[in-house]
């Protein structure tokens, strides 16, 4: 059986390691000392698993250990800044080195072909695993960032007693509007505010859907007995809204947060006075 030929690689472990590290250096994905330890461990475990292999490698428990190890290695290499390409090269150079040793060991071409075929199947499977491990690492990062973004995206600020402001940055879609509205209404209750300022300076474009969401938010605020001012309407947004034909006449809108605040002060009958020098 071809397994015996692959198992024979174990006796040539040291030579295989030498050839492999040479190939790694040539491919430029060598990492010096840390890697040498890793490579030794991997080669030893892998070759032992080969030597005891009996039947399909997919069913072998020994190979599960090897696969765990290679996933661990590729994750740690990923953290050390290796690209997925270099991670794959780590394994393909190992395959190359093994093939080279095999061709020296086996003289019969039919047997050599069978041994290489088996080796290919095993290592290709591991290469796919390293890619999957890399992707999983990336997906973890992305989902963490999504959570973080949705958490920081809707702060409600109390700017004065009775006045809350909510700066909106980015695109307002249905799910985001829901969060914004909930936060704003809750904050109006919590602080007993009578005026809410919705600042849309950071919203890149106001289309009819965004406008509809804004109108709904304003209506909900009014139902709570508070007044809502929309600020941060840039000139280009104003013109676009007019061309689109969106009717915002029932809503108090201001160009800047400062003028919205001034309006809010007026509504609360507050005046800001410059202190006179005596």
């Amino acid at each position, binding site marked *: 059986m071809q397994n015996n030929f692959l198992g024979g690689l174990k006796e040539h472990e040291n030579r295989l390691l030498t050839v492999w590290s040479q190939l790694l250096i040539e491919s430029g994905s060598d990492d010096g000392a840390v890697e040498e330890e890793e490579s030794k461990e991997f080669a030893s475990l892998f070759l032992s698993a080969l030597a005891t292999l009996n039947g399909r490698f997919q069913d072998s428990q020994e190979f599960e250990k090897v696969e765990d190890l290679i996933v661990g290695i590729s994750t740690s290499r990923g953290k050390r800044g290796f690209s997925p390409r270099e991670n794959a090269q780590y394994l393909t150079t190992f395959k190359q080195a093994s093939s080279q040793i095999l061709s020296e060991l086996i003289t019969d071409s039919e047997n050599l072909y069978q041994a290489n075929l088996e080796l290919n199947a095993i290592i290709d499977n591991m290469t796919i695993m390293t890619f999957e491990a890399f992707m999983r690492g990336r997906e973890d990062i992305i989902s963490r960032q999504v959570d973080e973004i949705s958490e920081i995206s809707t702060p409600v600020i109390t700017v004065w007693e009775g006045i809350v402001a909510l700066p909106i940055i980015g*695109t307002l*879609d*249905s799910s985001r509007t829901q969060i914004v509205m909930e936060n704003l209404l809750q904050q109006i209750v919590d602080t007993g505010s009578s005026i809410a300022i919705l600042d849309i300076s950071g919203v*890149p*474009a*106001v*289309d*009819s*859907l965004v*406008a*509809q969401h804004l109108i709904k938010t304003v209506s909900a605020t009014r139902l709570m007995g508070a007044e809502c001012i929309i600020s941060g309407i840039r*000139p*280009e*947004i104003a*013109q*676009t809204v007019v*061309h*689109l*034909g*969106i009717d915002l006449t029932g809503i108090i809108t201001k160009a800047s947060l400062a003028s919205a605040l001034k309006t809010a002060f007026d509504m609360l009958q507050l005046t800001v006075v410059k202190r006179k020098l005596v």
Partner: protein
Amino acid sequence: MTTITNSKEEALIIREQDVVPLRNRVKEYGVKIGMSILNQTKLITATSELVRNLLKYGGGGKVIIESVSNGRDNGVRVTFIDNGPGIADLSLAMKDGYSTGKSLGLGLPGTKRLVNEFDIKTELGNGTTVTITKWKNG
């Protein structure tokens, strides 16, 4: 008047998450030909309207962004293609305030006012194709 396409790309739109990247691509096309902030905003707002229609009524589809030139002026052309149910009454759909989906009903007529060229082809059961062009100095 003949128009020449300088560069072109396609994007598949299947989820709401595809809207923002598409808008950014369209904006980049506008920036590349030196479009003013006002026209850029008009263009991306129009794109935003149509791509939402594409998702909501057409069930997703394909968007083609082109950088075009007619000899005197450069512009951006965006084509929205879906295989949805089509629009039953086009003249009604182009009217302000008409909507079958509880929205403001400004998408199609509003978009037409935002761009320089607006073309819509629809057939019941065979989807809708909308093409808009915004010229740099239009």
